[in-house]
């Protein structure tokens, strides 16, 4: 099995490991380091929206996206029964609402397959008050993990966990740098697979596999138009990348924690207060639909437009959207300032992508 095949298997399987305490995490702003320091295995919870969700549909309103719908369906069918705790971040409204829905299902007596729940309630406005509030929630989560695993989350253990996550992030950063160059032959689909696998693998193993994958030879992808992606959904599956790349594009980056935002700044392992250092990494360096002000949301995208110099900014606004559309005119202006045209996608339709670039080539 090649490195990429092993990465792909982990990305697809998303299974709960046997024999150790397992903590499910919904939302990228939950520090994996805390879970590792508590002696448990972190596992991202995000089911692929590839089938009917009749049980979930009984509870969820129409505006929930496919990932949340599929995840609730999987939860109710018992797919995550083995979790010792399910932590939901308030990194998006959908996760907060899902937390409320899960609590209500439990209250109504339908929660036998639902693991214990914990809301990691970050407020994402960039203010000192919200940082202080979030730090209190981080310590609250550490206490909950300690109660779940019986292992104290000490500074020493958290520092050791941070060394693991830093190694993984450094490896992901190397992949992100490489994929900006089409000569590397790294497609968006492959990049998302390789990065996303890190949410389901031992961190050191993931870092090693990514580095091995990077060293493997691949045919160049220089003939394809290069796209930077901003989406109004969490990119926890490959559907959007597959649609874009079926439509002739090459996705060289995406403003999403499942993709290009998975690496980023490393945590200062020698920080005087390692809890604060870990918190600040997640508070200041990870994207969230709730992040404000707009300038903070735009920081990465603005910089990445300069770094990767794409042929287009693809903005995906799903039909069920109730919030991301408020950002669209600003994102379009931001791209125009960088001399980059904007491709608006409302569906996963490769034909729209092909038509966009055919017209661009004609011009």
């Amino acid at each position: 099995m090649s490195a990429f095949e092993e990465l792909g298997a982990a990305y697809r399987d998303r299974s709960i490991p046997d024999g150790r305490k397992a903590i499910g995490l919904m939302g990228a702003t939950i520090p994996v380091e805390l879970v590792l320091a508590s002696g448990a295995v972190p596992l991202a919870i995000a089911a692929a929206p590839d089938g009917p969700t009749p049980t979930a549909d009984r509870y969820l309103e129409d505006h929930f996206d496919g990932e949340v719908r599929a995840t609730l369906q999987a939860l109710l069918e018992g797919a995550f029964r083995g979790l010792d705790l399910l932590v939901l971040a308030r990194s998006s409204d959908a996760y907060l609402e899902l937390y409320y829905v899960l609590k209500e299902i439990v209250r109504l007596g339908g929660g036998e397959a639902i693991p214990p729940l914990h809301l990691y309630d970050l407020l994402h406005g960039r203010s000192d008050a919200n940082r202080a509030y979030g730090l209190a929630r981080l310590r609250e989560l550490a206490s909950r993990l300690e109660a779940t695993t019986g292992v104290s989350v000490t500074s020493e253990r958290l520092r050791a966990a941070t060394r693991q996550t830093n190694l993984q992030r450094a490896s992901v950063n190397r992949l992100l740098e490489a994929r900006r160059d089409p000569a590397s032959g790294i497609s968006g689909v492959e990049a998302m697979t390789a990065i996303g696998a890190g949410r389901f693998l031992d961190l050191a193993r993931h870092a090693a596999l990514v580095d091995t994958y990077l060293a493997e030879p691949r045919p160049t992808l220089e003939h394809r138009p290069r796209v930077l992606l901003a989406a109004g959904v969490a990119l926890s599956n490959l559907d959007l990348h597959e649609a874009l790349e079926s439509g002739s594009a090459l996705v060289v980056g995406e403003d999403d924690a499942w993709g290009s935002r998975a690496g980023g700044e490393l945590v200062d392992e020698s920080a005087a207060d390692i809890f604060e250092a870990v918190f600040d990494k997640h508070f200041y360096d990870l994207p969230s639909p709730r992040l404000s002000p707009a300038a903070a949301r735009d920081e990465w995208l603005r910089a990445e437009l300069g770094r990767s110099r794409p042929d287009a900014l693809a903005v995906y606004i799903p039909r069920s959207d109730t919030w991301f559309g408020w950002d669209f005119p600003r994102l379009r202006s931001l791209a125009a300032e960088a001399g980059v045209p904007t491709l608006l996608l409302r569906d996963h339709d490769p034909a729209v992508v092909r038509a966009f670039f055919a017209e661009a080539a004609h011009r």
Partner: protein
Amino acid sequence: MSVAPSDRVQLAATPLASAYQRQWFQELRRRVFEEGQPYALTNATSPHEVFDVFAMPYVTNEWWSGLVAAKRVSGRYLELLEQLGYHEDLPHYGAVALGTLLDSDPTDAPWGGLPRPALLCGRLVDQGAERLWSLMAEAAGAPFVPIEVPGSTVMYPRWWEMARTGWEDVFETHRIDRVVACFRDLVGECERITGRRFDEAALSALLDRVHAQEECFDEVRTIICEAPRLPVRLSEQLTNTMTAQWHRGSEWALEHARRFRDEVLRRAEEGVAAFPGERIRLGWVGVGLWQDTDFYRAFEESHGTVFVRSMYLSIASDGYLRYGTRDPLRSLAGRYASFNETLHTAPWLPEWTVADCRRHHCDGVVIANLGSAVKFTADALERAGIPALVLDIDAVDTRNRDDAARQAVAEFLERRLAA
């Protein structure tokens, strides 16, 4: 299902409320335009009482949206937003104010248009709210103070039974602490804009008047629930309740709440029914149909049906009365920390709706589908033996007004409640 215009208003209090609101807005325009006084654009679940203490005028975007919808011109602003690149499926309720602020031609705007606010303050009810408020602030060139409210982790189903005095426990101390901090930010901004110092004693006195006003509404609800037939139509409940609520704590609002209560009480005591042929009583869940309040009486003659209940009167007491603290900002935070959750989240919305509709002796309930806890609420009503109809309807967009909603209610009445 048509409605005779001459029979629209039955209470003497109703035209007084409408007239006061018009007079107030003209006064607002005079103060803002002619005298240059700063005003705030805010939302219904922000602490208006803080603005009152600073004698700072304010307009709520919900009220403005309702007014624009009632004047049947909301479509113009929604189309403007679409032309600017904001897609048509974004929530309309609240967006009308943005359209108004971005519109360069206020000629057709109700009452001459929305003046530029000096301050914006809104609760971040969802991840779209910060974006919308920030866009409005940018359009107005004014600062925005967000009210950021933590998520709830403890949710007592029958919250309304405890919240008047036990709000600190019901709504969680760490959440209330954070909301108080936001209110202090707002106070600081108001001090900067007005040049006045915050008067805590004045806020306490104002809250006492708010409590007295909401106690009147609590009495009105009891009168309606206990009367054999509905003494005041829902459309007039909405006008009288919400006009006073927009000005809550003012001398006029308290006086009007008393006037409204006394008139409803008199009608009930005299056995006056809003519609003498009442046979079926419906509850309404969700935002009011401000652009079409005739809707609520459209089934009287045809089906002997009256709408008796909405959230507006019931939340006045259950959502606003917060007794038992010497710290008025904390009392306010105890109210607003969970205002949206109680109206949009299970178990709070379904449990409250079932209890309140039972109390109103509702035979059935119509739910305006705003996509928050609607399925839980409809299920809870059905489990309680109260048939529920979920209606896909836009409370603001006047472009989509048609008879489909009326037809759906008529079919619901005939299919589920005719017996």
